[in-house]
C-alpha cells in the first residue's frame, strides 16, 4: 500500500464575526481607503436589495433573488477583477455586477421581466445572469479558452451556489480547466442552502473546496463574510490565472439570510434560530465593526452613506420606471443577426397584433 497522492484543504479568514483580526492582516487590512470603498459597495448592494424586494412586494418588479448576508462575495469578486476580465454570474450576484459597473436600473429592468436589462452599457463582455444552474461554469471555461488561445492576460470568473456544485457542468468545467490550465476562477457562494436543500444534503464532501481535487486544480475555502480574506484569496487566484498558472476553485462560506427568492418562504423549511445565529456573522456589520475599531468609520459616516445609497437607489428606480416599454417585435429583432425570411411573416403578424403569417 503506497500513498500516491496527498491533499490539504485550507480555510482563510482574517476577521472574526465580531470584526476582530484573528490572523495577521495583509496590507489590505490597513488600507482605509480601499476598505471603506468596499464597505460602501456592500451597503449600496444591501440598499438596492432591500428596495428590489420592496418593489417586488408591491408588484413593481418580478421575482427577485436577494443577496442579503452574502454581499461581501460579490463585492470582492467585482473589486478583485480587472475591467477586461469577464464575469459569468448567477442570479444572486447583484453585488458583483454592480461593482463591475452594471447599472442598478439595468438589473431592475431584468428582474422586471425585460431582456433589455442584460444589454447593459458595461461591462460589455460580461455574461448575462445565468439561471440554468451550473451552465455558466462551462461558458467560463470557454471564455478562458479564448483568452488563452489569444494569449490575452485576462481571466474569466464564474460564480455559482453550493447547489450548483452538484451539476455535471460544474465538474466538466473544472476538469477542463485543470487539463487545459485555463485562466478561470470558479467562485462558489456557499450560502448553505439551495432553496430548501441544506448543504449537507447536497454533497457528502466535507468541503466544497475539495471538489477541486477531482479536477487537479487549486481549491481553497475562505470566510465569505470576511471581505479582506475574500479579496486576498480572489486576488491570488486571479493573479495565478493571469500568469498562466491555472484555475482555482474558491469556496466562500456564507449564509443566505433571506428567503431563496421573493417567491420562497424559508420558514417552511428552516429554523429561525439558525438564521438568527448566522446573522451574527454577516459581512456588513463585521466590516463596519472593524472600520469602527480602527477609528475609520463613525455613526455620521454611516448615516451619510445610508442617505447616499438610498438616494442612488431611488434615482435608479426612477430611471427604470421612466423607461418606455419594450416593443413586442423586440422578441424577433435580436433572435438572429438578420431575421431569416421564414420568420418575417410571424414578425409582421405580431406587429399587426397577433395573426400568424
Amino acid at each position, binding site marked *: 500500500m503506497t500513498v500516491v497522492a496527498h491533499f490539504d484543504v485550507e480555510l482563510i479568514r482574517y476577521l472574526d464575526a465580531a470584526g476582530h483580526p484573528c490572523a495577521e492582516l495583509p496590507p489590505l487590512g490597513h488600507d482605509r481607503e480601499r476598505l471603506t470603498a468596499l464597505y460602501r459597495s456592500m451597503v449600496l448592494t444591501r440598499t438596492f436589495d432591500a428596495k428590489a424586494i420592496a418593489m417586488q412586494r408591491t408588484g413593481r418588479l*418580478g*421575482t427577485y433573488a436577494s443577496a442579503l448576508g452574502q454581499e461581501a462575495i460579490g463585492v470582492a469578486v467585482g473589486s478583485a477583477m480587472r475591467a477586461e476580465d469577464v464575469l459569468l454570474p448567477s*442570479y444572486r450576484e447583484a453585488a458583483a455586477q454592480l461593482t463591475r459597473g452594471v447599472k442598478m436600473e439595468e438589473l431592475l429592468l*431584468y*428582474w*422586471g*421581466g*425585460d*431582456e433589455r436589462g442584460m444589454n447593459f452599457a458595461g461591462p460589455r463582455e460580461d455574461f448575462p*445572469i445565468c*439561471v*440554468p*444552474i*451550473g451552465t455558466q461554469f462551462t461558458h467560463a471555461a470557454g471564455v478562458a479558452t479564448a483568452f488563452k488561445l489569444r494569449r490575452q492576460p485576462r481571466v474569466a470568473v464564474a460564480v455559482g451556489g453550493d*447547489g*450548483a456544485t*452538484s*451539476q*455535471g457542468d460544474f465538474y466538466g468545467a473544472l476538469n477542463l480547466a485543470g487539463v487545459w490550465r485555463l485562466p478561470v476562477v470558479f467562485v462558489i457562494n456557499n450560502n448553505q442552502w*439551495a*432553496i*430548501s*436543500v441544506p448543504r449537507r*444534503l*447536497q*454533497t457528502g464532501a466535507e468541503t466544497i473546496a475539495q471538489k477541486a481535487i477531482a479536477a487537479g486544480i487549486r481549491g481553497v475555502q475562505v470566510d465569505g463574510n470576511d471581505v479582506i480574506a475574500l479579496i486576498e484569496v480572489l486576488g491570488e487566484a486571479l493573479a495565478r490565472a493571469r500568469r498562466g498558472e491555472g484555475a482555482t476553485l474558491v469556496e466562500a462560506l456564507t449564509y443566505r439570510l433571506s428567503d431563496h427568492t421573493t*417567491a*420562497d418562504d424559508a420558514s*417552511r*423549511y428552516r429554523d429561525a434560530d439558525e438564521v438568527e445565529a448566522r446573522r451574527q456573522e454577516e459581512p456588513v456589520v463585521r466590516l463596519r465593526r472593524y472600520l469602527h475599531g480602527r477609528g475609520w468609520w463613525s455613526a455620521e459616516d454611516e448615516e451619510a452613506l445610508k442617505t447616499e445609497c438610498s438616494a442612488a437607489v431611488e434615482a435608479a428606480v426612477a430611471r427604470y420606471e421612466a423607461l418606455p*416599454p*419594450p416593443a*413586442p417585435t*423586440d*422578441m*424577433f429583432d435580436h*433572435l438572429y443577426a438578420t431575421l431569416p425570411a*421564414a*420568420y418575417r411573416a*410571424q*414578425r409582421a403578424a*405580431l406587429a399587426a397584433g*397577433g*395573426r*400568424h403569417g
Partner: protein
Amino acid sequence: MAEITLVEAVNLALARAMAEDENVVVFGEDVGVNGGVFRATVGLQARFGAERVLDTPLNEAMIAGIAIGMAAQGLRPVAEIQFTGFIYPTIDQIINHAGRLRNRTRGRLSCPMVLRSPMGGGIHAPEHHSESPEALFTHMPGIRVVIPSSPARAYGLLLAAIRDPDPVIFLEPTRLYRALKEEVEDSGEALPLDVCYPLREGHDVTLVSWGAMVRDALAAADELAGQGIAAEVIDVATLKPLDMGTILASVEKTGRCVIVHEAPLTSGFGAEIAAQLAEQGLLFLLAPVRRVAGYDTVIPLARLEHAYLPNAARIVAEVRSLMEYA
C-alpha cells in the same frame, strides 16, 4: 367530494399512488420538507417518510438517471424536474435509456418511471421558467407524453402514468395550477392514457389543444358561439401515443381544424397533428389546417410574454378566417 385545484389534484394522485403501492417513490429538488416549489408534493414526506420522498442534489441528468436504475429494479419512481426549462439535461437519459431499456433488453428490463415537470408560460416567472418542450418528447420512441388541463384529468392521468409499465413524461401547466377548481373524487380511478378528451361539441370547426391553451380554446369557443360558430374542442391530453382517431372523426364532421399550442410553431406538436390531417383528412377538409402557436422565438420575459402566448382572440380570428372556406 372537494373542489380542488390542478396542483392539489397532482398532490392527491401522488398520495394515493404512494399509499397504494410501496414501490412508488417521489424525489427531486425541494420536493421534501418544502413540498415542491409549487407545493405539488406538500405533506408527502411527513406522511410517507424521508426514504420515499427524497430531496436530491441539484442535478437533473442525475435525477433522470437514477429514476431509470430504480425503475429497472421494479420501483415506481416519480421524479420531479422543478421547471421544464431545466428538463433538457434529462433528454439524453430519456431518449437513450428510459425509452429503450425494454426494447434493448427485449423485455428483460423495463422502466416504469414518471418524470413530472411544471410547464409553460403566463405566470410572470423568471427566465427559463416558461418553456413548453413537449414536442421534443413526442419524437422519442418508447415513452408516453401526457399533459393534463383540468384537476380531474391531472388526478386520473397521473395515476395512470404512475401505474403504466413504461416511462411517462408528465407535464403540468403552471398557469392552470391554481386557475380553476373542480370536484375530484379520490377514487383511485385512473383515466386512459391513449385517448383524446373532447370537451365541447360543435359542427363548424375543431379546436385541438392541450395544456394551458385548452382554456383559451374553450374561451374562444364561447366567443365563437356568440357569433353563431359552433366549435368542437378537444383536449389532446395524451400526446404520445396520439389518439388521432378522435381528432379525425371530429374534423370529418367539422371540415375545419385549428390546432393551438404554446410552444414555438415550427416542429411543435401541432405539426404532427396537421401532418396526419394532410395525410388522412384531405378528402373532408373544407379549409386549410391552421396552427395558432407560440412564435418561432424564445418565449419572452414577463413584460412581453402576453404578446407571445396564443390567446382566445387569436384563435377566434383564425377560425373566422377559416369560415370563409366552405
